């Protein structure tokens, strides 16, 4: 196609001298030849011609490596993009190389009962806690019923722990245990939480990095206000996703060495009255919701 436009453009050029030139486009402003009827054929030498394409980007056949549609705990091979987009050109500079990684499918929706026929809180056992190359936090293999899945591990998660995933909100707040997942409405104020979802059933999208935790500030009118690691506050449905809990009374020290574990956070679930998600501006200024909190903890 580039070739066709090129030949078409070249075909419009000719070596023969032109009989008449248009008044507006004449290269010799003193010549006042008017000839409106004739076709104007510009000379090959200096007259402007149609822009010619001399190069064209090939449509890149970059197919995403994400072809698995069913959940599996087996690590999957992934292809790195190197900052290139679907056309094959660099979109973001500075990305590329690095150690080969295999992707482990993480289930961010903690309260996902194995069979839809049996809704209700259920327990799972931690089988393995290991390093994940795709994220800063460690991951834990948990098994419940007849299925195994990967979740983000909390700081003190050990092999053999039993963790509870619940969507029940009682009148009294639950005594939070590390690694448990509860709706926000079931948690007491002041709990440290992570893996928060903005609406029930969405899956955890906030506070997932290593060493991060949010604080449940207050519960207002069927919503809960959470302070994110960037000190930005988020008003969330009380029906949130599960979050693993980490009680505030538990003293923990963050050192650079103990980074890879995510602090446990609690997901709060909530009554279904209304859902409004909007972000209040933090006192210090607008902050990015997804900021990596490493820099904060190090200083």
């Amino acid at each position: 196609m580039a070739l066709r436009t090129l030949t078409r453009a070249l075909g419009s050029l000719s070596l023969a001298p032109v009989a008449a030139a248009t008044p507006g486009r004449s290269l010799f402003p003193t010549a006042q030849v008017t000839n409106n009827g004739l076709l104007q054929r510009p000379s090959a030498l200096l007259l402007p011609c149609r822009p010619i394409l001399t190069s064209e980007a090939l449509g890149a056949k970059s197919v995403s490596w994400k072809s698995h549609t069913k959940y599996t705990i087996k690590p999957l091979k992934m292809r790195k993009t190197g900052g290139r987009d679907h056309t094959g050109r660099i979109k973001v500079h500075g990305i590329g190389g690095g150690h080969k990684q295999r992707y482990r499918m993480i289930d961010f929706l903690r309260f996902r009962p194995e069979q839809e026929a049996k809704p209700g809180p259920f327990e799972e056992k931690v089988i393995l806690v290991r390093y994940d190359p795709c994220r800063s936090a460690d991951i834990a293999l948990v098994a419940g019923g007849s299925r195994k899945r990967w979740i983000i591990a909390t700081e003190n998660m050990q092999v053999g722990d039993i963790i509870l995933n619940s969507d029940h909100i009682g009148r009294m707040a639950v005594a939070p245990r590390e690694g448990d997942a509860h709706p926000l409405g079931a948690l007491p104020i002041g709990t440290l939480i992570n893996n928060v979802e903005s609406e029930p059933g969405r899956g955890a999208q906030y506070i997932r990095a290593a060493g991060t935790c949010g604080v449940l500030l207050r519960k207002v009118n069927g919503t809960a206000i959470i302070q994110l690691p960037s000190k930005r506050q988020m008003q969330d449905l009380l029906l949130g996703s599960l979050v693993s809990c980490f009680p505030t009374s538990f003293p923990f020290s963050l050192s650079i060495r103990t980074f890879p574990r995510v602090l446990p956070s609690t997901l709060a679930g909530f009554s279904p009255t209304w859902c409004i998600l909007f972000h209040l501006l933090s006192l210090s200024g607008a902050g990015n919701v997804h900021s990596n909190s490493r820099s904060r903890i190090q200083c």
Partner: protein
Amino acid sequence: MALASGPARRALARPGRLGLGSYGAPRRGAYKWGVRSTRKPEPSPPERVYEIPGLEPITYEEKMHFVPWLARPIFPPWDPGWRHPKFRRVPPIHEHPLYKDQVCHTFHQRCSLLEGVKQALWLTKAKLIEGLPKKVLSLLDDPRNHIENQDERVLNVIYHARLWHCTGDIPKRETYCPLIVDSLIQLCKSQISKHPSLARRIYAKNYRLSTTWNREALLLQVHGSGGARLNARDPLPPIASREEVEATQNHVLETFYPISPTIGLQECNVYDEKDNTGFQEGYPYPCAHTLFLLEAASVRSYRFPPDQLRAKMIMFAFGSALTQARLLYGNDTKVLEQPVVVQCVGTDGRIFQFLVLQLNTTDLASNEGVKNLVWVDSDQLLYQHFWCLPVIKKKVVVEPVGPTGFQPETFKKFLALYLHGAVGAKEPSEA
């Protein structure tokens, strides 16, 4: 209101969504795996006209071309009348003749049970006893049962399997593991001159096994192939006495909440409930004597850890014992008068696991009653390590070529298991 923006503003503007009785669906669901091109598109629903009963929809079928204002006709599936061998259409799973609604949890040779031996014991309703039974251990100590130059010959077997038989420097586990087992069995067969009843056995490879049983409303199946099996004409005598068998009634099977006992098993809807011993009727060696399970994969992640290997041994030994019991005593669930005994040896070429299983009952549906017995001797090293090339540091041979940490006890146990059932005067079992 001024603070609300984006989704919040839309939510406030639309009061209909606010008053929800139940949780309500999230605006955007949880992450779905796979990109759009790999997700199967949902089949388009048929035209609304077909939903009205008793109405004959007017379609463009007779016109033989598309007409936008007539309904889309639904054609019956076309059968071309012949099958091209290259383009075979796999019929949906519901049309398979062996399809059943009840799910069957199948254990095959690649199933790795998460809880290992505990899970296998629950599935087979068995009680674990550490160490081999006294009857077998007595065969071990008897000097009449030893082979001449036993240690030297076993070392030769190890050298041959791990070093001599291959042309390269270091043979792979896929070659040396089956070779070690075959050579050790050949060594045991040299005792035929002393015990003629050893000749009433045959060594079979790549057998198939299939058996089904119910366990507390679960349908379980062992369906496997591969490995080797030593068959005999005469069954093994029972090991535990009647009193010990009755004493197992008080034993409570260990559960592992919150993990269900079917974790790691494959769920199938297409299965056959028939028992299959792997051999046809009229086979001259009907009784299973010992099973040999090999973990011969070179890559460590493809091999089973010792606990999972022992679980696999329990399941396959149980499967063999159950098919044999059903063949002898019928399909009724009952406590067996004559318990069926099957042995099993599992190895990865270096570490051996020994197992003896006694099937006391085929009544497996309930958790009460008599349990089966399993004796396990785990993690018996034949040798600690084998140096194929000598370790030389500063021109001094630090480690010579050969095995380090050789333990002759392991082969003695192997021999004892082999001779069990064939040695003439059996020691009286100690209560």
